[in-house]
């Protein structure tokens, strides 16, 4: 683990320096795209996969002739996994006038922190943060390449009622912003179907013991558990205690319950559980092809494809606009419909949200199998 982490950092640092140096050497020849990415700090590990993916997209675009006849060149800045780091990284990129567009962050809080500067700069930013309000800020330059959180709640409720045909919901959620947002989405969507949950149970993050929650679920008479866990260890502790105390109720969770880390911690306690997921290799041919290329190059499976989609869509936008003028690129991106990406079919709406549905997956003995895709058109 030591070697991977260090070498990943070194190679990331080395390549970004290289990009900057070579960028100055041949400034006029390339189409420059700024990328804000966590090269250091706690989320550097998933950040590495996102950076590899965006590079893969650049290689593919360049092999196909580039953008407006120019080769794409990525200028990467480290956000240090923090909000101030992200603001600093973006301001460094913003100073370079030759950059035509950006790939932003997967963290909603970082996007919120950078959004005012992005509005000032006035160039398209493709991003992955899933806070629904981000595209409703009145900032016309934000384009989202992952389904926002309002869809995860809708998809979970629709899957429970239409596919599993279950009615008595026990809702377990973290009391932080993510968990509370998820809870509200579930409650709103249940209400639309005229349903009331039999239990709504919040918990604070980093709990060593979940037995009070498990016993509450057990005595609620629920026939399905819905969960929004923020931290992976919390989810794993809950899963194990749930099984130990004999609860075998079907369980549909937010994306974290199918993450490799959670599965590694909880092992068989999570077998048979369902989760919503934005990137699933087997959900569509584009995702499959991307995952195969990624594996051939990096000897591991990608757990996300949004940065690949982000750059592909940005490049398509510039090509469609036949111009690097921000307003024209924006119009071209908003006009993108029925575009097959790794995360699903992109149909940009007026707010800049590209995706409107989620995949549902099931954990079959630690193998994540694609179950179905639920898409909304309204």
């Amino acid at each position, binding site marked *: 683990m*030591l070697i991977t982490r260090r070498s990943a950092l070194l190679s990331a640092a080395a390549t970004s320096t290289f990009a900057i140096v070579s960028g100055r050497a041949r400034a006029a020849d390339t189409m420059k795209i700024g990328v804000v990415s966590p090269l250091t700090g706690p989320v550097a590990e998933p950040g590495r996969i996102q950076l590899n993916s965006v590079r893969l997209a650049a290689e593919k675009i360049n092999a196909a002739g580039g953008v407006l006849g120019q080769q794409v060149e990525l200028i990467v800045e480290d956000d240090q996994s923090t909000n101030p780091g992200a603001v600093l990284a973006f301001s460094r990129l913003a100073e370079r006038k030759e950059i035509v567009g950006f790939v932003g962050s997967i963290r909603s809080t970082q996007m919120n922190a950078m959004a005012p500067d992005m509005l000032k700069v006035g160039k398209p930013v493709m991003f992955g943060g899933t806070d629904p309000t981000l595209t409703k800020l009145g900032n016309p330059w934000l384009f989202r390449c992952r389904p926002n959180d309002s869809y995860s709640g809708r998809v979970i409720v629709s899957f429970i009622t239409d596919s599993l045909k279950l009615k008595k919901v026990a809702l377990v959620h973290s009391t932080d912003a993510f968990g509370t947002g998820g809870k509200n989405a579930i409650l709103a969507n249940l209400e639309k179907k005229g349903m009331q949950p039999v239990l709504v149970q919040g*918990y604070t993050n980093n709990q060593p013991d979940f037995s009070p929650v498990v016993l509450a679920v057990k005595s609620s008479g629920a026939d399905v558990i819905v969960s929004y866990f923020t931290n992976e*260890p919390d989810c*794993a502790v809950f899963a194990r205690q749930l099984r*130990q105390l004999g609860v075998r109720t079907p369980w549909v969770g937010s994306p974290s319950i199918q993450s490799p880390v959670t599965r590694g*911690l909880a092992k068989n306690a999570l077998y048979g559980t369902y989760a919503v997921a934005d990137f699933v290799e087997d959900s569509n041919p584009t995702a499959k092809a991307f995952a195969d290329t990624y594996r051939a190059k990096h000897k591991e499976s990608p757990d996300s494809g949004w940065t690949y989609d982000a750059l592909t869509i940005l490049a398509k936008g510039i090509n469609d606009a036949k111009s690097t003028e921000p307003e024209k690129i924006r119009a071209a991106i908003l006009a993108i419909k029925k575009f097959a990406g790794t995360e699903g079919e992109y149909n940009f709406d007026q707010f800049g949200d590209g995706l409107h549905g989620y995949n549902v997956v099931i954990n079959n003995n630690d193998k994540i199998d694609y179950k179905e895709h639920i898409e909304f058109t309204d």
Partner: protein
Amino acid sequence: MSDFLQLVFQGLGIGAVYALVSLGFVLLIRAASVVNFGQGEFSMLGAYLLVVFFNILGINYYVSIVLSVVIMAGFGLIFAYTTYWPLRFRGGLPVIISTIGASIFLQNMVLWIYGPSSVQIDGLFDSDGIQVGEVFLASQYLAIIVLAALLVLMQYLIFEKTLLGKKLQATSQDKEMASLLGIPVVTMIMITFAYSSALGGFAGILVAPILFVSVNMAGIITLKAFAANIIGGYGSIPGAILGGLALGVAETLGAAYISVPYKDAFAFLMLLAFLMVRPQGLFGEKISEKA
């Protein structure tokens, strides 16, 4: 009723964890008059050593535990020489701040080496636990309760019944006087640091299968252990144990019957109540005895 018994068992289990970590605090308070805020990091390091020996190097589980605990004892000496020794004549506060600094350093060092993801590690037993009627007794919690009881007994015997324990206590109460009486004060303090670090590491190893191994694994537990130490009586060994168990049971029952999101609040409300009504805690010494 079965739910109630289940909750009491869980409360005792998690309370025993608090008690174990609290014991490490008590030791250093008693023998060296040091409040060590790096105590939680001792637990975290012990658990990571087990990961290295067992998960990575594939050494036998029990041998790995022994190796980890021995290394932690050695680490306690290094900790003492770097964190406590240079500041030993400066009074309590600089040492406390120094231990906070050391704890931040250790967390970041481990974060740098292992990354932020939690690691799963096996428990002492293959079986998850046993079903007694309606109540499920998780094996790791059972082990923690039994081992905590044994360690407490051992620590009590060392402090109260052996010459070494008496020397340690004398060192804690008055270093100059102890030194005049021919007690090797420096050795006593070093022994305490080594033992406290080994004990902290062992506590970390015991809770690792329940909480998983991560940089922050000891955070909230250390805070609660410190609260348990105050509730039980600052620097009291039986107090640390009873305080820990009481805290564990109270917060688990409070969570189940009053409110889950306020679970952590119950622990600290209890602390506040004790500070106001009985500041010396359950087994606290009266100040006049020491004067």
